[in-house]
């Protein structure tokens, strides 16, 4: 990875032993090679290079309009790239129509066929493959069991709940065993609790089947939970690709830092360096941080709220100390987040885990507090 990542402790993913992207000999299953696409004057995707490996759970993350859906639809065959190459298992598939690609998609609104039963929906792709009837019936039963919908094969889609429809859509897309399954905002229509359950079920399913999944989502939490790697997209480009923890802990720029989670930014010039530690001169004060930059460079320090310690009294010792008063706070049960004003109009976000049930002196609005962060907790960003 980058130089910065090397002098940090190893950052793990969900499956820390699974990392084919680090193996130079590994052949990617899907390869986007300088792919671009415009709709009229609107550039949707520009110069995207991306490799997705066999067995990977890959997330395309970005706000709406960033080009993530276009990228997915190009892989499914519903959009043709204007430039670049699109390879599946080393073969250029751009000339293949959607029905000839071993790539299946789970549509955002599920797109279940309303005139067909659940079983017929699941059998749709199998019938197109020309499998014998008995084999189709067996596979449909197998799929129904896999998504826990046994006995519902005869129902019509409109007789199902939202969560059940989602499972049928999933079963229909995986039944013909695609080389890669595309999931277009698969949990957008589910409520929060069901969404969390479904996320874990998807991960289990993906590992059980050993299938390659590519998910498109605007929900960073979802991407962080399910994916082996995340590609953060911005205005048609890939801003960063990495494991969830890499993207969170070592964002490459302010955009990625701000898109994934909350972040506090301190802007200033590098005043001095001392080994891996640099000293930043900013309007908010002088801070020490670990990072690579030269004296005089214009940089930003990105510090996550949970990495900022909150003290009710002035602590002695810690570096990077800031004094302020609590403007607002939010009690989230597991966490309390504080909005601290350190100068008129300048606020810092800090979060504290509620590790004990009873607190001697709970902090409230208007209380003076002191904030501090370790030099190793800040990320130095140059753009």
């Amino acid at each position, binding site marked *: 990875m980058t130089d910065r990542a090397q002098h940090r402790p190893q950052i793990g993913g969900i499956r820390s032993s699974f990392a084919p992207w680090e193996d130079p000999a590994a052949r990617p299953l899907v390869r986007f090679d300088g792919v671009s696409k415009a709709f009229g004057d609107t550039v949707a995707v520009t110069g995207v290079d991306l490799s997705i490996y066999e067995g990977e759970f890959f997330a395309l993350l970005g706000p709406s309009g960033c080009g993530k859906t276009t990228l997915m639809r190009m892989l*499914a*065959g*519903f959009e043709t790239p204007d430039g670049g190459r699109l390879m599946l298992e080393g073969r250029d598939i751009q000339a293949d*129509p*959607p*029905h*000839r690609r071993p*790539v*299946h*998609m789970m*549509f*955002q*609104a599920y*797109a*279940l*066929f*309303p*005139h067909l039963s659940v079983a017929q929906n699941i059998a*749709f*792709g199998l019938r*197109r*493959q020309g499998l014998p009837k008995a084999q189709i019936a067996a596979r449909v039963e197998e799929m129904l069991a896999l998504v826990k919908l046994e006995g519902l094969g005869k129902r019509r889609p409109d007789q199902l709940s939202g969560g059940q429809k989602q499972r049928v859509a999933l079963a*229909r*897309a995986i039944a*013909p065993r695609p080389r890669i399954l595309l999931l277009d905002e698969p949990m957008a229509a589910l409520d929060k609790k069901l969404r969390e359950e479904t996320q874990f079920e998807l991960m289990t399913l993906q590992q059980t089947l050993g299938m390659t999944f590519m998910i498109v989502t605007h929900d960073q939490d979802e991407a962080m939970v399910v994916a082996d790697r995340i590609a953060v997209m911005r205005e048609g480009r890939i801003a960063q690709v990495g494991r969830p923890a890499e993207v969170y802990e070592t964002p490459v720029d302010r955009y990625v830092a701000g898109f994934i989670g909350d972040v506090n930014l301190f802007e200033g010039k590098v005043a001095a360096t001392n080994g891996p530690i640099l000293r930043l001169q900013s309007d908010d004060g002088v801070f020490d941080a670990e990072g690579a930059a030269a004296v005089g460079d214009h940089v930003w320090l990105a510090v996550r709220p949970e990495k900022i310690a909150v003290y009710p009294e002035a602590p002695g010792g810690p570096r990077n100390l800031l004094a302020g008063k609590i403007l607002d706070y939010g009690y989230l049960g597991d966490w309390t987040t504080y909005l601290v004003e350190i100068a008129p109009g300048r606020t810092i976000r800090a979060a504290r885990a509620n590790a004990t049930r009873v607190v001697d002196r709970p902090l409230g609005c208007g209380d003076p507090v002191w904030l501090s962060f370790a030099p190793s907790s800040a990320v130095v960003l140059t753009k």
Partner: protein
Amino acid sequence: MRAGKSAPAAILPFLWLALFFAFPFILVAKLSLSETALAMPPYAPRLDWSQGLAGLKAFFTALDGETYGRLTKDSLYLAAYLSSLRIAATGTGLLLLIGYPIAYGISRCPPSVRQALVMAVILPFWTSFLIRIYAWIAILKPAGILNAALATLGLPPVDILNTETAVILGLVYAYLPFMVLPLYAMLERQDESLIEAAQDLGATPLKAFWQVTFPLSIPGAAAGALLCFIPMAGEFVIPDLLGGSDTLMLGKVIWTEFFANRDWPAASAVAIVLLATLVVPILLFERQQAKVLS
């Protein structure tokens, strides 16, 4: 409370039905049970209110189904009846064949073009129906536009005015919007992602059409078919203007009985029989709709 509030609104359609359907229907049904008479109006019995209850009793005992018996004796009625159904069925079949591609084509166009094309389908309504049918006479007559065009192409002339072919041509022309519009409405609101899903799962575009688009458009086709078949079976103007003396249709029979023969009971009986027949496809359609909804 809620039911009480909406009751007046619920009654309105029934009132409308009673006034414009049930009442005329009872009149026609009563007429069909009467007899012709040399009187003004030309039928008997007539209800004599001055006799009170006895008059009412006399009136009802005089009603009988004798006219319907007459219909079975003269083969002309049966022939006209079968011919009407055949012509309406042929017309409906042709309308489906012609209307479906038009409706499908419009629904595949970009939204801005769609509006213009739907407008083009409706546009002929802005000209009087009668004038449009007369225009077909000008086109189809022996020295008409059609034969002039055929002559220019070096083809032999055709003489189809006053034949069943001309009637079917006129019917298809006149009823095309009634087939295209319900079909279009059905196809236009079909979710594009269903077609994509079908193709994604390995269906060729043609297969995706037959497996998804077509089955989902059947209710629209059924609505269009009914909207066309029912009025076509009773059509009078088109067979009268474009058809010949050998084109038998019930609309013409009713007109002849009513105006030429002054046989109001027979005209009414024919109308009732036609209505009874057309109830069958309507019920079938209702059942099919209920199945779609369930």
